[in-house]
């Protein structure tokens, strides 16, 4: 397995397509945690996120021969998870839990200069509330850009929108956050 981790995703996919189907476990191992984190930003709870990710991995395998190995596999698999998450949202029509948005929790708890736990908790709750109110397509770009650290080009490929639209949505999402988020917690959300 150590040997496989030094090989690119696309090279592993090539080997799977040539018959080494067992290597798909390597792909799952590389992506499961981050895809769960991404799916979690859409679903109400961890179980729903796990279902989304499992369905996405199955769909990815079934359609693996449509993947062009000269493209980035990460953009492709994130796109599949995005679609599965949208389907899950449409089916359940549930909103994001206010309690477990990992980005908001991490941001709120990472500030070393905060003097009290109360401020951290209040900041996290405020951020959770703002994100929950945000339309999905703005929450999407914020999560991928800040949580996953994806550049604009990859966001364009994942979300299947023009690069210009990525920039526009990010700017609007940050403006929305700035408008609704209490000023005393701006530094928590890196605004």
């Amino acid at each position, binding site marked *: 397995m150590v040997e496989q981790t030094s090989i690119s995703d696309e090279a592993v996919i090539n080997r799977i397509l040539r018959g080494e189907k067992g290597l798909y476990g390597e792909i799952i191992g590389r992506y499961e945690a981050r895809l769960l984190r991404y799916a979690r930003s859409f679903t109400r709870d961890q179980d729903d996120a796990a279902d989304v990710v499992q369905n996405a991995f*199955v769909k990815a395998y079934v359609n693996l021969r449509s993947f062009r190995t000269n493209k980035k596999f990460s953009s492709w698999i994130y796109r599949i998870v995005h679609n599965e998450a949208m389907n899950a949202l449409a089916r359940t029509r549930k909103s994001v839990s206010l309690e477990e948005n990992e980005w908001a929790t991490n941001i709120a708890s990472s500030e070393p200069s905060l003097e009290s736990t109360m401020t951290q908790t209040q900041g996290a709750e405020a951020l959770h509330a703002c994100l929950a109110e945000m339309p999905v397509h703005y929450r999407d770009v914020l999560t991928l850009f800040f949580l996953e650290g994806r550049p604009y080009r990859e966001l364009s490929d994942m979300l299947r929108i023009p690069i210009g639209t990525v920039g526009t949505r990010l700017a609007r999402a940050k403006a929305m956050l700035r408008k609704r988020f209490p000023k005393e917690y701006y530094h928590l959300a890196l605004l």
Partner: protein
Amino acid sequence: MNEQRSLADTILGDIRAQRIRMRPKMYFIAGSLLLGTSVGLALAAGLMSASIVSYRLHHHSPFGFLFFGPVGFAPFIAAFPWTPIVIAFLGIGAGAWLLRHHYALGYRHTAFGIGVGVCSLVIALGVAFDLLGLHQTMRGVTPMRALYSGHFRGAYWLAGTVTQARNGEIILAEPDASATRVLFSPTTNIQPQRKIERGEWVRILGQDMDGDFDAAMIRHGPGDADDVRLLVNDPE
């Protein structure tokens, strides 16, 4: 870590048991061919319709009926190429939608950009198709003939090419090649000049008299007449 292995183990188990299988390459090739064919057919329908609209607007010019004043509005509406325009927009819309949503790189352009691009291309090619005279071939094809011919006769109006002109009487051939005898008198309002010549395109308001037509107003052009030789067997 155990949870990580269990998801991988679950999926790998399904793969080994062949409960989930990869779709064959041919599935995706067929999909691409279907997409290409669909886009091609949609754009072809748009292009053909755009060429028909171009042909009928400059050749038969329904706007000419408006010179008759308010009474010319109904024949203008009847002669205007509504059906080809609708088909053109449906074809352009379907082609642009397929490109935007199903072509691999369609998302890199805005819907507006793709729509404008496809629309411009189809309209430009449609007009070029018409101006290059390629419509001559298409007019002979049965389903296309009706679209090229259009509708040029109503209860009180008529338009077509003059195939014979005599005192008080002209024989008019409509674009669908049917012929009508039109009677006129010194009191008939003929604009802009009274002389009517063989081979010109005219519009007529009046009254249908059991096959013949009694003209109250006749107007020359605008519009291009159909070739008289194609309408009648007349050595003149």
